[in-house]
């Protein structure tokens, strides 16, 4: 990428943000989240795992911004450190779902026929389960390791990509430029991979960012019912679940801060979607 195209891109990005203040807000939040994920463990004031019976359940104060939990761990440190894990889980799950789902959908949409019918029924089968329950089942059956949470989340996200890819590929399979590509001697697979698929990316971007948020919620939900990440790993969902029992007794900060962090992260990804699409779509650039 040349210097001028970088410059072009930044100008375009700036335009997308100024046009839509909500996207700008999301971008700012995203920056925060990325910093927390990358540098979190180095930034926090306390060891997120260190227990200390002497300072258990202290409300937020100067020393402990978000208070301490029932084992005296610093909630702020845990919330910040948890960012990386939550982000990794959702990123891995969404990436997996996107790659497999969109490949399946693209093939189904392009070739149609039996490939389409089989994929369609397979997706219907997955979709016929309330998706969260399916994820629960998968984790319950396979055991609650981080990998399994990722797989479960990926499985329930998969139909969205597959359906979207199918629809987007299907409307383009007979487009003029695809026919032209055939005349240029491209085989089916090359047409699919190089000509059609890249064009389906802008709408997929929205889906990816929505799903990132959803994947985080999902992992947290699994943790909430005890099928998620294992303690004492800091993770937002577990922290809310653990903190939930303390709300009624007045120790609201245990659940509140991780809950807010969780919400903000999901919120950011959800908002980011539209901005991301505008950014990726070459047609929006001049």
């Amino acid at each position, binding site marked *: 990428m040349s210097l001028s195209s970088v410059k072009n891109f930044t100008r375009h990005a700036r335009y997308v943000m100024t*046009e*839509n*203040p*909500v996207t700008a807000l999301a971008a700012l939040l995203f920056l925060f989240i990325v910093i927390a994920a990358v540098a979190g463990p180095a930034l926090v004031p306390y060891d997120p795992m260190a227990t200390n019976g002497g300072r258990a359940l202290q409300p937020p104060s100067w020393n402990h911004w978000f208070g301490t939990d029932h084992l005296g761990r610093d909630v702020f440190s845990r919330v910040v450190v948890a960012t990386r894990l939550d982000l990794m889980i959702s990123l891995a799950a969404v990436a997996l779902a996107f790659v497999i789902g969109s490949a399946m959908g693209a093939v189904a949409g392009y070739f149609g026929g039996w490939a389409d019918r089989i994929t369609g*029924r*397979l997706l*219907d*089968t997955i*979709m*016929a*389960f*309330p*998706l*969260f*329950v*399916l994820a*629960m*089942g*998968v984790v*319950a*059956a*396979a*055991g609650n390791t981080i990998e399994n949470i990722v797989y479960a989340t990926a499985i329930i996200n998969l139909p969205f990509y597959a359906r979207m890819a199918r629809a987007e590929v299907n409307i383009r399979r007979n487009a003029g430029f695809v026919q032209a590509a055939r005349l240029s001697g491209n085989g089916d697979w090359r047409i699919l991979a190089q000509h059609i698929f890249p064009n389906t990316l802008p709408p997929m971007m929205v889906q990816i960012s929505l799903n990132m*948020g959803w994947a985080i*919620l999902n992992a*947290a*939900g699994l943790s*909430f*019912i*005890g099928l998620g990440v294992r303690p004492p790993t800091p993770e937002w*969902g577990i922290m*809310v*679940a653990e903190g*939930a029992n303390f*709300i*009624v007794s007045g120790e*609201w900060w245990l*659940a509140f801060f991780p*809950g807010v962090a*969780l*919400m*903000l992260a*999901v*919120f950011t990804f*959800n*908002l980011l979607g*539209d901005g991301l699409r505008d950014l990726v779509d070459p047609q929006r650039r001049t």
Partner: protein
Amino acid sequence: MVRVPKRLRLVGYRLLQAIPVLIGIVVVSFLLTRALPGDPAVYFAGPAASAESIEQIRVSMGLDRSLPVQFLAYVGDLLRGELGQSISTGQPVLTELTRRLPASLELTGFALLFSIAVAMPLGILAATRPNSWIDHLCRFVVTAGVSLPTFFTGLALVYLFYFLLGWSPAPMGRLDILYLSPPHVTGFYVIDALIDADFETARAALAQLILPAVTLGLFTLAPIARMTRAAMLQVLEGDFIRTARAAGLSSNKVLYSYALRNAILPVITTLGMVFSFALGANVLVEKVFAWPGIGSYAVEALVVSDYAAVQGFVLSMALLFVILNLLIDVTYTLVDPRLGMED
């Protein structure tokens, strides 16, 4: 004339499409339950059971047979309409499901009503003023809604409205202790109570519904509002809207009679997905609000490897889903005259 059979055929075609899905679900539910950890025989045998008594129960439950044999037995039971007995609750799964399903449906239904009532106007508002601050605000609000973990929202609402303010009745399920459930007609307490002309009970049931329904509804605002906005925007850009405006139709007429009726079609499709979404989220909400629904039943069943209950749950969900999609298809054909007519 030609239209009716064509639509009927479309519905029939959808039904046919559901068959492989149902088969797939039977297989998946069977495999999933067999993959669950924990030995139901051990659970069934209870504490202090000896190895022999566990083995004895294993044999009586048919768990000693090979998987294909177990599967055939399972399919055989299904064909006879038998869903088996739930270990964890000790009830026939069918009884449990028929009692719990209305509870979940009532909750989900109210949640969707709430959600639609809020999200559709927001979506329309946003679509009529794209990129204005109102648009951004709507987007902000609905996104905030979908970003809230339902279990967190539920807890927060209970804490605020029940524990602190005391505005809401205790989160103890479908009815407060003081009331008896109304005579069973539909299984929906509010409706049953109204049928019985028992307005107090209806009110009480409704009061119990508000917090969980709002919790769940907040979560489903975003997809509905987003889809409404997108569909409205697309329709409003349509040539026929320009024609209608050029013909001097009032903006209300254009917006509601022309644009919204067209935009509602993709929204209806979304509703199906949202419903399935909500049923999933139900699991967490039911847990928080002690709602005796099908979702909390499934969680419990999963945790104790209650094969029959999990299978029954999954199957009823699938059936529900198929029926729902059919309903959506039928609604669609009612709203959209084009369906089934184009080649």
